[in-house]
């Protein structure tokens, strides 16, 4: 019988205590914010969308090797000796044309492993988190500043430079051996 009354009393008392707690919350300041109008100020280390400052990129491919999901694709073309590609912000001389620098942000897992190995700190994570697209292809960002024709043109004149160097080496090989052949082949 005592147990019976204790149950009744406990039932009523704990229900009232619970109601007191929820009532007290009725008048407490609210925690939620009105998202589109009011936005949370992200801390400066926030890791959201990747950004690449392509002028500083020397095409060293460190970031695409560090990425666990391989979402960075880089294609580079060696510069012909004559060309001058300028210097990066921290004084490194650029020797490669970066013809293609694509990041598939849909595959990216935002781990930030690509940011640390970059020698010229040209890739980092901004705090932009609203970048949804209607088509999946738009999520592949192309950071290279060479238009496709320029890229093609760079490849062609590099290939031409390669053949010319190969012919030159072949020419030297023939002149080096005993039977001297007239070495007119290496001027043109």
């Amino acid at each position, binding site marked *: 019988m005592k147990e019976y009354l204790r*149950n009744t009393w*406990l*039932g009523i*008392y*704990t*229900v009232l*205590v*619970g109601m*007191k*707690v*929820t009532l007290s*919350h009725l008048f407490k300041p609210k*925690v939620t914010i009105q998202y589109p109008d009011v936005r949370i100020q*992200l*801390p400066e*280390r*926030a*890791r959201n969308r990747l950004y690449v400052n392509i002028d500083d990129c020397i095409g060293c491919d460190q970031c695409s090797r*560090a990425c*666990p999901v391989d979402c960075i694709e880089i294609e580079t073309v060696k510069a012909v000796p004559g060309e001058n590609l300028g210097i990066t912000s921290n004084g490194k001389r650029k020797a490669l044309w970066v013809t293609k620098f694509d990041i598939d942000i849909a595959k990216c*897992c*935002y*781990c*930030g*492993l690509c940011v*640390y190995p970059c020698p010229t700190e040209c890739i980092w*994570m901004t705090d932009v988190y609203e970048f949804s697209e209607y088509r999946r292809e738009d999520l592949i960002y192309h950071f290279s500043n060479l238009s496709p024709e320029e890229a093609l043109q760079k490849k062609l004149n590099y290939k031409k430079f390669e053949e010319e160097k190969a012919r030159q080496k072949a020419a030297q090989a023939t002149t080096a051996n005993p039977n001297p052949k007239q070495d007119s082949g290496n001027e043109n």
Partner: protein
Amino acid sequence: MAELKTDQIVLNMGPQHPSTHGVLRLEVVLDGEVVVDVKPHIGYLHRCFEKHAEAMTYPQVIPYTDRMDYLASMYMNFGYVEAVERLMNIEVPERVKYIRVIMGELQRIASHLVAVGTFGIDIGAFTPFLYCFRDRERILDLFEMTCGARLLYNYMWIGGLSHDLPPQFIPKLKSFLKDFRKSLKELNDLLSYNKIFIDRTANIGVLPADTAINYGCTGPVLRGSGVNWDLRKNDPYSIYDRFDFEVCVGKGEMGTVGDCWDRYMVRVREMEQSCRIIEQAIEQIPDGDVTSAIPKRVKPPVGEIYFRVESPKGELGYHIVSDGSLNPFRVKVRAPSFVNLQILPIISRGHLVADIIANLGSLDIVLGEIDR
């Protein structure tokens, strides 16, 4: 009257069900309301973590460990990173150890808040869930301030940390701990000692101590059954032996030892203990550089190691086999929820349909960790 022909009904709960904590299918054989047998079916969230780990280098595996138990990913990093450091016997600076303990305990509080909140929803009380998540948001803000991410951090590296603590971290942490004590008391008033909650959880899903040990259960599930076993105390790793805190064990205050209420109350009291550990760690934290001991190329010697830590869900073990190359030869993860889920049929037989959900909630399983 001739015996009424009754038959058992097979009810499929999941994989898309409001309270199975993720993609888990329970095949429940019912006789009326009484449960005859429960057969859990897992594998819906299998993402071949172990096959991935064989193709990645050691540092690249860390973002994958985040995604196993996404509610306690700081501790998943902690376990993996300590295992590899033991393999290469790297000695990390003191400051790194202290920050790892602080971050680990904060993650324990956040994980327990989710566990306690969703357990409340399974029993029917919706409001405590939102109070728990309001506090958890403050912890996530602390994490975002430090490493930039809110849920999957990739913060602990092999040999150190990716960032040091920002200057305003400690003051914000102190103010959080002060407010958190008040909301813990409020949670107890609203849910823990509520008569209806006690009726729904006391004497439900009783797990005797020896069955728990034999089934390999660990963490709050084991401690709820009265077994005083906490890796931080009994098999200390990192610097947990420098802090004094008690191991909360189920004593059967509201029913028999090892019922749902005990497992729930162990988690609530553990949050209190984690606050104490964090406060002691804040006072003793030394200065120093957190990235000094990070090796350029991680190439551990040939050999294998099994290292375990006390993650919020239980004993999290990493069995790493290395063949001397840059990529791990095999990484096997002993996930606590994978083992704890095995006892669901044992503790649910003979109960009612509503109690399966209560038992499942009290085990606090995360499917990302079970399916890996």
